[in-house]
């Protein structure tokens, strides 16, 4: 039987175990004078039976499914006549895919050597057997587990504790999974980054002022050594993010203050969702808005005052990105400002403070940690944003602080480095990992810094 079918079967068994244990606990309790004489509520006995039924069975299922293919393949390969044994891993996988294609019926066996067709029928037989064994074993374990739990439905046994402990462990596993995945991603990026630094010295990467990752495709090609200086990318990123935050923080914060302190309830309940909708617009839409409307407008405006602006500019991308991240600042700030207890406002107002004084001196400091959190979220969105920049700010890695120039950012470069067919080993491709790593470190430092600031200045209310 397939794993995909076994899974629901185990769950059904667990539900049955739940029901049976529930009824049994009631039956056990009845002669004693009701469920109050049990150590735990019937729910806990039932839940424990379900857990006992499902968890060991699922673990066995997972282990079996994990090793099944490898083991069967080993046996199939070993069954081939010795003179046809694969010499390399590549060859082995070729043969194996041939075999499994025959077994699946998608390759016509007539034109294939006999040892392949033989192996294919062996593979089929093995898979059948394995499937049957697996099904029997899993169901057996599920039934055994449930039976065990069922026999332990007794008034003096406290099922509540078992269930609580198990649930706690399950939650822990979920949390650990999230953390481990992150750690795994970081680790693999880190390894690739090291490979990149084998090719390009780390000092050149960190302090180089020019970025042009095109390396020569042929040895005899001239002039394309490739330059991997990251500084222009980072100044580009900082420039655009700074412009975006300059727009988003004041607008977002002031609108949050308006919404939470001054607006009527009805106003708030209409404006807030509309503002939050800004965050739901796909960034590519912002991107063409920036490229087709804002950037030309800025260029024309600059021309009128006698400045030269390129048709793709950091300013255009930054402004539009700023609008995009307004809801991150405003929505979160609004929430934390509204969460400051009314007694704080009353206390301040009763001393003769105006509404804005109250805001500035009491509410805002109390809400500061949350507000910083919102700004940080917005900042990391800005730093990570790619689409708007590609469309509105260009791809040229200019080292400049002029917002009217076109610039590019770290994320845009990562995207362009990996788009299309690339050899996986070139310095060009690997540099994407180094950029990613650097970006990760920078945002991490930003977070740590912000946390420190928040700790220092927060005014905690209770």
């Amino acid at each position, binding site marked *: 039987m397939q794993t995909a079918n076994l899974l629901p079967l185990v769950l059904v068994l667990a539900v049955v175990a739940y029901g049976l244990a529930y009824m049994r606990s009631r039956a056990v309790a009845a002669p004693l004078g009701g469920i109050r004489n049990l150590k735990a509520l019937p729910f806990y006995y039932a839940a424990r039976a379900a857990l006992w039924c499902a968890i060991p069975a699922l673990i066995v299922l997972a282990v079996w499914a994990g090793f099944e293919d490898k083991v069967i393949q080993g046996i199939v390969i070993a069954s081939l006549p010795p003179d046809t044994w694969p010499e390399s891993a590549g060859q082995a996988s070729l043969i194996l895919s041939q075999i499994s294609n025959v077994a699946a019926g998608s390759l016509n066996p007539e034109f294939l050597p006999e040892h392949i067709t033989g192996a294919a029928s062996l593979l089929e037989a093995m898979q059948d057997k394995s499937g049957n064994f697996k099904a029997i074993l899993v169901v057996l374990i599920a039934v055994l587990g449930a039976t065990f739990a069922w026999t332990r439905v007794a008034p003096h046994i406290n099922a509540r504790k078992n269930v609580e402990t198990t649930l706690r462990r399950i939650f822990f596993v979920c949390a650990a999974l999230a953390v481990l995945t992150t750690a795994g991603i970081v680790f693999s990026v880190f390894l690739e980054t090291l490979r990149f630094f084998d090719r390009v010295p780390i000092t050149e990467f960190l302090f180089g002022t020019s970025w042009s990752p095109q390396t020569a495709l042929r040895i005899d090609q001239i002039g394309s050594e490739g330059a991997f200086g990251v500084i222009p990318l980072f100044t580009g990123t900082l420039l655009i993010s700074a412009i975006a935050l300059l727009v988003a923080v004041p607008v977002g914060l002031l609108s949050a203050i308006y919404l939470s302190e001054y607006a009527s309830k009805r106003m708030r309940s209409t404006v807030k969702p509309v503002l939050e909708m800004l965050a739901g617009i796909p960034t590519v839409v912002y991107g063409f808005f920036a490229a087709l409307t804002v950037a030309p407008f800025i260029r024309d405006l600059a021309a009128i005052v006698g400045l030269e602006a390129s048709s793709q500019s950091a300013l255009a991308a930054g402004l539009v990105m700023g609008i995009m991240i307004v809801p991150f600042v405003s929505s979160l700030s609004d929430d934390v400002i509204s969460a400051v207890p009314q007694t704080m406002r009353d206390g301040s107002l*009763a001393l*003769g403070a105006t509404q804005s004084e109250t805001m500035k001196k009491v509410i805002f400091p109390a809400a500061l940690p949350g507000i910083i959190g919102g700004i940080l979220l917005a900042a990391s969105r800005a730093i990570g944003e790619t689409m708007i920049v590609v469309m509105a700010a260009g791809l040229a890695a200019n080292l400049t602080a002029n917002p009217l120039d076109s610039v590019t950012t770290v994320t845009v470069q990562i995207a362009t480095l990996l788009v299309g067919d690339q050899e996986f080993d070139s310095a060009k491709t690997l540099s994407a990992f180094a950029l990613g790593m650097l970006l990760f470190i920078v945002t991490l430092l930003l977070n740590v810094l912000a946390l420190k600031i928040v700790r220092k200045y927060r005014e905690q209310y209770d």
Partner: protein
Amino acid sequence: MNTMSPSISAEADMRSKGAAVPVPDGRRKDTLMEDKPEDTVIEEGKTVGKPFTADPKFKLRNVDVSYGADRAIKNISLDIGRNEVIAFIGPSGCGKSTFLRCLNRMNDSIDICRVKGSLELDEQNIYDSKRDVVELRARVGMVFQKPNPFPKSIYDNVAYGPRIHGLANRKSELDDIVENSLRKAGLWNEAKDRLDAMATGMSGGQQQRLCIARAIAVSPEVILMDEPCSALDPIATARVEELIAEMSESYTIVIVTHSMQQAARVSNRTAYFHMGHLVEVNETDTVFTSPQHPLTESYITGRFG
């Protein structure tokens, strides 16, 4: 005025007498029904006793307050004298807080709250549309039921009001104001070494005294207190009551309280509220020894409330 232990047991006595009628539950209800004080008809705007004084600080006439369609205060007229301590008592939900909050327009921040009638402080209309609420609240301070210090240092809490109103030109002046206020609130000895510590780290009683210090730091003329001791233990309560006695020399104090003993100990006059009506106002002694209205009598003898 400041000793309290005898009166506490007095209350316990009163209440237990009321409850200890030796009849089974079902019948006791019935007997109570016969002369249920709640059934007494209250005539709107009619207040027993002496609601008016000569030369009042607050002159309140025909005050009506409603939250949306609910009338919380029904046609109340009352004078609050200069430098007197007046206690508002009455069962929960009868409108004491609502009425109190009209006196410094704290009701303004509740959208649905409407105040009608004439309310004057020193013969100036409180609800005049041209009235500066900031100035009004600087003159009429307020202390709340739950201590609500700002999450700032002790010093900054007391200095908050003076800073807003520009009461100090120099740091040393501000220091003096803070010290004086803390002294008046009886908190100086406990706080002088930790002025920079967070106010939220203090005990409940200390926090409440800090809130009082914060209120008197702007030198108000009136202090409104809404159940200032309900979150405090008897010792802290006694401390606050002492404070009220001291302050009554220079301030007008309005205190809402659920403790009849407290009202009896600290106030000169007592006002009894019932379901939005002002039923009886009189000298505190008179109210507690010979109440004129049956509702007042039932309330202070612990029949309900």
